[in-house]
């Protein structure tokens, strides 16, 4: 792996997959390149790492514990004893890497800054220059309200909204199924690779929002994509080539989640799950999130999402033979709790 920068991405991913398969684990290569529903393919791995003391006695998760939790999740995912090695496998030093966070719900229920800082730290240790890391979401206002310090300084990690004057949306209209949209230039032009850093939430329309639904923050017209429980629009938008090709990893913030009333923050429906979920298969991780939310709803005496009329039916559509974005079959998901 010492001459990685000279290799093509295809070669790189192939090498990762072979290495992981040899170790008896699911490949670190982006799972959308495979069909995990097929019996002869490895299962899609989803890691759940939790720390009951994550928040200590305070209102916010403790940075040092979050960093350790992230390492535990990533090392379990990659079956590695080195906290930096998984990042080196996924990203090359000359690449521009974006972190798509989720900040629409404000400070109570957005991707935590401490998690993003921990990811940025590991990326830099893996050789990515600070100037080549972009933390982003739809708007500067949402990032700011969620606690991020905006910066477009080209020499540092950038924190920018697509609505920044010098970013905006790409002029090319992309379409798949019911989706016709333009993508953020951060995704379309600036970045070579992406990390999806969503948050575990109920969604009053889609039922559940985690990895796949977070893509409603990368385009110019998410308001047009909420009909019919956002289905098949969520699956369709994830078929767009820049999304399929650039998103390589999901690090889901499940430190605080919400089991009802989402996607906005309503404290009475939020709870501390104290976790981080890691996967490369967005369907498998969303299926896992659905299970987590259903368990919490049952514990609090609420109807299932099916009974409430908002089953996350987009998950099965994302897994179907037309989309093949991953697997929703529990028997094809290798769930590892650490």
């Amino acid at each position, binding site marked *: 792996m010492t001459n990685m920068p000279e290799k093509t991405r295809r070669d790189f991913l192939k090498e990762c997959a072979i290495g992981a398969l040899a170790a008896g684990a699911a490949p670190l290569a982006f799972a959308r390149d495979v069909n995990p529903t097929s019996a002869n393919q490895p299962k899609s791995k989803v890691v759940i790492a939790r720390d009951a003391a994550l928040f200590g006695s305070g209102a916010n998760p403790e940075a040092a514990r979050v960093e350790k939790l992230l390492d535990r999740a990533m090392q379990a995912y990659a079956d590695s004893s080195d906290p930096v090695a998984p990042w080196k496998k996924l990203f090359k030093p000359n690449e521009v890497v974006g972190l798509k966070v989720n900040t629409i719900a404000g*400070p109570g229920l957005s991707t935590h800054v401490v998690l993003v800082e921990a990811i940025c730290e590991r990326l830099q240790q893996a050789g990515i220059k600070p100037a080549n890391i972009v933390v982003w979401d739809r708007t500067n206002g949402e990032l700011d309200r969620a606690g991020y310090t905006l910066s477009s300084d080209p020499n540092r990690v950038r924190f920018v909204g697509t609505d920044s004057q010098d970013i905006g949306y790409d002029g090319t209209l992309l379409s798949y199924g019911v989706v016709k949209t333009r993508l953020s230039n951060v995704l379309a032009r600036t970045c070579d690779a992406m990390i999806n850093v969503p948050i575990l939430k109920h969604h009053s329309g889609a039922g559940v929002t985690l990895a796949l639904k977070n893509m409603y923050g990368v385009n110019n017209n998410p308001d047009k994509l909420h009909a019919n429980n956002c289905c098949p629009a969520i699956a369709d938008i994830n078929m767009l080539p820049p999304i399929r090709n650039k998103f390589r990893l999901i690090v889901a913030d499940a430190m605080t989640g919400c089991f009802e009333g989402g996607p906005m923050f309503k404290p009475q429906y939020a709870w501390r799950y104290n976790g981080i979920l890691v996967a490369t298969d967005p369907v498998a991780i969303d299926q896992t999130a659905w299970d987590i939310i259903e368990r919490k709803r049952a514990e609090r005496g609420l109807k299932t999402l099916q009974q409430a009329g908002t089953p996350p039916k987009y998950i099965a559509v994302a897994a179907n033979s037309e989309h093949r974005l991953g697997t929703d079959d529990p028997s094809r998901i290798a769930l590892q709790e650490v």
Partner: protein
Amino acid sequence: MSPEVRTFSPDQLSEYIDGDAEKYLKAGVKSTSTADYKLNNQIQVVVDVYTMSSPAAAKTIFDSEPAMDAQTPTLGDAARLYTQSLIFRKGPYLVRMVAYQEAPQLPLALLDLGHAFESKFSR
């Protein structure tokens, strides 16, 4: 200093509350205003005022949310108070107040703020 008020028309509402907008649109929302307050100069509280098309429309939204372990103070036509939030309706208005941290006197402070808003609606 007066807080900055942001107002969203029905066709802009999803910019503010994403997919949650659907149920408000279906029930009949006319406009939404939101502003940040600081209670006791410490605790950030977001106040959303949804102006619905009728009292029945406000009731539709209010009733759609599980009460869970709410207190039900005397405020407006109906209210639910939690440790970090308050929701009440008064005529066509639906008001939601959300604090981003807990504090011992917070529910009482939210209730006071709720009464202040209620009195404005009654004028």
